[in-house]
């Protein structure tokens, strides 16, 4: 608006070639100051969260439009996929459904058994998760931060802090929710930490995103820690954010050096961080956590149980271990493994407490 007025003014005053309005230096100073002020406000104060939310809902139709060509391409590809391919895929899916059905039946029994065991131990109930299927619509332009935008938001009851998983493992966590989309920070992002457990020996640790190369680090573990190449990391569930027993990463490198008391451990994410379109947003409702603490004994309501089995595909990847781990989580922290480092809860999951103490 201001600029337009200046232009009109200038065009009357001077020939177009010389017409520039305020000097470039003045503009530079003004807009640099504005940018710096915005950056300070956005990073230190929370005032801009609402503004961002409103602007994002304006942006959403544009994202849908930008996404349309690739979606159209995929759809036509699917339409023209051959009969043979479809038959093969159908057979494979049937096979997969069969094995998963069996695993699901076992899961029901294990859930029941777990409930009974928890009752015996007088431990708190593990929480029932709700899950929402979402599709990636936008990958961040920024190569420094690993963030993606998915097509489910507040209108679909996505909450900030929900875990994002695919069929193979954890991908990330919902960090911002907008009306009809939400932003997921991938576990490879530098600012995201995720509490994990080594599947082999139950050792607890916290995995941090490396920020580049799509890898995770396990920092602050002593040089003599019992971790080997090929060890699988699963979520420990003690943060109350991620359900326990989801695959996170595999250790690909374990190095100790003379000059550092800590081991240098690099892990590769199990989930398809870069190549999946669909993912599942799994959340553990905060309110339920409160109510569970109120009543000492309770069985899972049937409705929750059915939701739990709906969220199962991701959990099925580690079927035999999950029951044992859940039981292990119920143990006091020290008894589980004396060698483990009691690392502080990560800032990304601030506010959540271990729900399985006692």
């Amino acid at each position, binding site marked *: 608006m201001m600029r337009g007025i200046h232009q009109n003014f200038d065009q009357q005053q001077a020939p177009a070639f010389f017409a*520039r309005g305020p000097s470039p230096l003045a503009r530079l100073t003004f807009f640099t100051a504005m940018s*710096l002020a915005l950056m300070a406000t956005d990073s230190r104060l929370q005032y801009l969260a609402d503004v961002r939310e409103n602007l994002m809902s304006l942006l959403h139709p544009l994202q849908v439009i930008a996404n349309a060509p690739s979606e159209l391409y995929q759809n036509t590809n699917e339409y023209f996929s051959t009969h043979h391919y479809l038959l093969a895929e159908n057979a494979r899916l049937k096979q997969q459904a069969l094995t998963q059905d069996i695993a699901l039946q076992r899961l029901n029994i294990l859930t029941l058994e777990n409930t009974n065991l928890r009752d015996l131990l007088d431990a708190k109930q593990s929480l029932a998760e709700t899950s929402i299927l979402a599709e990636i619509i936008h990958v961040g332009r920024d190569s420094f*931060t690993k963030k993606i935008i998915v097509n489910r938001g507040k209108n679909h009851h996505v909450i900030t802090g929900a875990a994002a998983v695919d069929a193979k493992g954890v991908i990330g966590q919902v960090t911002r929710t907008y009306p009809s989309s939400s932003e997921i920070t991938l576990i490879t992002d530098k600012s995201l930490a995720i509490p994990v457990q080594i599947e082999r020996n139950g050792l607890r640790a916290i995995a941090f995103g490396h920020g580049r190369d799509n890898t995770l680090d396990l920092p602050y573990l002593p040089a003599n820690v019992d971790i080997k190449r090929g060890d699988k990391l699963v979520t420990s569930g003690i943060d109350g954010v991620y359900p326990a027993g989801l695959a996170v990463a595999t250790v690909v490198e374990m190095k100790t050096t003379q000059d550092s008391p800590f081991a240098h451990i690099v892990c590769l994410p199990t989930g398809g961080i870069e190549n999946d379109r669909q993912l599942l947003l799994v959340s553990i409702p905060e309110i339920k956590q409160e109510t569970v603490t109120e009543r000492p004994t309770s069985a899972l309501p049937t409705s929750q149980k059915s939701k739990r089995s709906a969220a199962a595909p991701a959990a099925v990847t580690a079927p035999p271990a999950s029951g044992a781990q859940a039981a292990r989580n119920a143990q006091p922290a020290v008894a589980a493994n004396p060698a483990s480092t009691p690392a502080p809860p990560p800032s990304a999951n601030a506010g959540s407490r271990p729900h399985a103490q006692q």
Partner: protein
Amino acid sequence: MRNNNFWSIYLSLFAAFICILFPWSGIALALRPDFMLLVILFWLLRAPNQCSVGTAWFMGLWVDLATGGIFGQYALAYTITTFFAVIYQRRLVLFSSTQQLVYVFSLLSLSQLILLILKAFAGHEFLGWTYFLPSVTGVLLWQIAVSFGLNTGRHSHGS
């Protein structure tokens, strides 16, 4: 004439923004040129009294929004870059096409460098020299556009 230019400026900026919103991934993501800055620079050289530092700042805010980063990062990078573009805009008439390419490349790299410094303050690491690949692809895109007959203001003294 002004109205005509006005619409083409904002339509092209809008198109650049849609390009940024495309679901890029993998190598394409690493090579993706900064469409927005390219379009801004083009209009800055072509119609400096209609597209200026303020336009760049405003479009930078939208790019910030699309990337989900802190507000003002792209805005600041675009502001400083366009300032240098505006300063040398009149001299550009005398530039040869190679000189112009070098000039555009240094502007694109400058904007990436500013973003890199801002990210370094936020605790991110340098991603290696491949980080500057978008500047290279950006210049290539510029050259392709010029060879397809896009007038980038260089010959404006002749016409």
